């Protein structure tokens, strides 16, 4: 178990005129043993952030600290597995189709620095399969014999095999049917809690994230726009984008809310040409598209400020979504009482 800290993390692709900043100067902390959900839409940079933490995407600038120490860059000839492991979205690509489930997991066990013979290793593989609620007899199966949900659990077992202190889970159930999604998510949460692993859980589905995580960060256009404990974020979202995401979750319990006609049809931004000021402003129901006097949104980028002890948001008019009776000046943001 370790704490994860991102300081000014930036990930960009391409060069020259065609540069795209997928993750833009992000500060984020997950306490040791914490379970943070990262929500956003495609192109928001959430996957890039996750991959950077796992050492799979190039860090353009900034730092990734594990327990205060910078994460060692990936070296081709490193001896042991890195402390951060990751599970991916696509169950068909996450396991080598030519390797048995047991061999895939054993690769992780060996990389975890475990000593011991073949028997020890296969005992460990059995233990891991049981940990993810799979029949240990699956060890001799090829991935093609398993269902999508089972493969994702094998992927989890392999990630856990090297005894990581941090786990990144990137959209691990979005390719699965809803009836089996829970079988993967439950196993992730139980295993992570048992082993006390700090977890970054990435998903586009806010409902899944609220069910899984203690704390949620919302990402838009490469930046974190809001971060709060789950209960707080759900009951008192402060950023209009968070509110939009919450409304967009299809629910059995309430009718579909109507979107604001004035910003109804605006598109997600082009990652190569982000709007000036707050990148959400053209789509914002609390922004200049609806309120003509809020020109500051198109001019200045809002700072990520603390609204209370654990609730941060990057908005010039936080909380203005539900009740916009009080016009707040951008300068007063930092000192606003909640």
């Amino acid at each position, binding site marked *: 178990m370790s704490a994860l800290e991102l300081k000014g993390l930036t*990930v960009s692709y391409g060069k020259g005129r065609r540069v795209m900043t997928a993750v833009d100067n992000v500060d984020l902390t997950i306490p040791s043993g914490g379970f943070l959900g990262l929500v956003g839409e495609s192109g928001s940079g959430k*996957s890039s952030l996750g*991959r950077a933490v796992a050492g799979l995407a190039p860090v353009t600038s900034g730092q990734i600290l594990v327990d205060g120490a910078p994460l060692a860059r990936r070296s081709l000839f490193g001896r042991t597995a890195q402390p951060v492991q990751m599970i991916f979205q696509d169950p068909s690509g996450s396991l080598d189709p030519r390797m048995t489930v047991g061999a895939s997991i054993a690769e992780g066990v060996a990389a975890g620095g475990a000593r011991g013979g073949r028997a020890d290793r296969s005992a460990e593989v059995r233990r891991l399969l049981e940990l993810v609620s799979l029949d240990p007899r699956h060890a001799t199966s090829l991935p093609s014999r398993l269902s999508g949900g089972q493969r994702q659990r094998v992927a989890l077992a392999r990630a856990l095999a090297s005894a990581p202190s941090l786990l990144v889970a990137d959209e691990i159930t979005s390719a699965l049917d809803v009836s089996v999604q829970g079988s993967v998510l439950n196993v992730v949460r139980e295993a992570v809690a048992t082993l006390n692993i700090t977890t970054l859980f990435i998903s586009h589905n806010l409902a899944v994230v609220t069910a899984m995580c203690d704390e949620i960060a919302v990402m838009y256009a490469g930046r974190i726009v809001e971060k709060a404990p789950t209960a707080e974020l759900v009951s008192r979202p402060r950023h209009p984008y968070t509110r939009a995401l919450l409304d967009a979750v299809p629910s059995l319990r309430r009718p579909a809310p109507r979107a604001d006609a004035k910003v109804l049809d605006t*598109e997600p931004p082009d*990652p190569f040409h982000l709007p000036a000021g707050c990148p959400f402003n053209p789509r914002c129901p609390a922004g200049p598209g609806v309120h003509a006097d809020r020109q500051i949104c198109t001019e200045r980028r809002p700072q990520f400020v603390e609204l209370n002890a654990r609730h941060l948001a990057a908005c010039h008019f936080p909380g203005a979504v539900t009740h916009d009776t009080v016009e707040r000046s951008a300068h007063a943001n930092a000192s606003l009482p909640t």
Partner: protein
Amino acid sequence: MTATTAPAAPRGLTSRGPVNPWVRFLARRLFRFAASLLGLMVMAFVLIQLIPGDPARNSLGITASAQSVAQRRVELGLDKSLLDQFGHFVGGVFTGDLGTSFNLGLPVSEIIGQRWAETARLAVLAFLLAVVVAVPLGAAIAAATSGGRRRFLDMAFTSVTGLAYSIPGFLLAVGLSYVFAVRMKLLPIAGTDTVSGYVLPVIALAVGPAAALARIVRLETLRVLGEDFVRTARSKRLPTLRVFLRHVIPNTLTPTLSMGGLMLGGLLAGTILVETIFVLPGLGSTLTQSVTTKDYPMVQALVLVTGGAVLLINLVVDMLIAVADPRSTILEG
């Protein structure tokens, strides 16, 4: 969007940068063409250097006198330093001086000047024949057999094209000339003094590539028929022919064009055998003779000419694809 893949293709109205993508595409492509030409020159030059032993001695044989070998060394420029040789070679390429043929004693450029047209005529005629036969055939067969219908037709097509493709061009050439020229005396055995002289060589040259092209066109057409947008077109209840002409065929163009480019290049190679069999004075038969008799300057020049032709074909094909497929120029940049 996942972070590992390259940034998504630009979209929206703002995606066009200040430079027209067409200009950028052309500039890139021409630069690549020039670089490849340079590479080709290096290759042609290196070819002679790589010949084990003494090329001069090789070309003259063991019985040649030391004096004539020394003379040939001078002819080949082998007495100079490597850098000088290369400089001389490149200079020669630009002034059209590619050396003198050992066999014919004539400037290589002159021989090529006389003979390239014959080869080009053969290749282009065979290309046109193949395209005219194969493209409609492949598309029609695909349309008729899509969705597992008319299994028999499908199998007949596969067998015929498989057979046509498996018969080497030179066997076909010999067979055709034996049957139609030697036995039936319908067409000339050799030479292209009359138009009818082209019939057999062109057919012999075209059959194999046509079979391959017809198969590719069929596969591509079947692939496109399975695409979502064809389903969309069907959902509009358009007449089948319109679906085919407006939605299917245009989208098979890109792979068909690339295949066509490769095929034209392949036809250049095919002329080697066909020209030899029908005794036609083209670059192909010249190449065979030059390789057999170790006429190095001639071989070197032919590397340049055929290689240049292949590069040119590639360039033209890329341009055509860029015109045919609106996505390609943008994706390139």
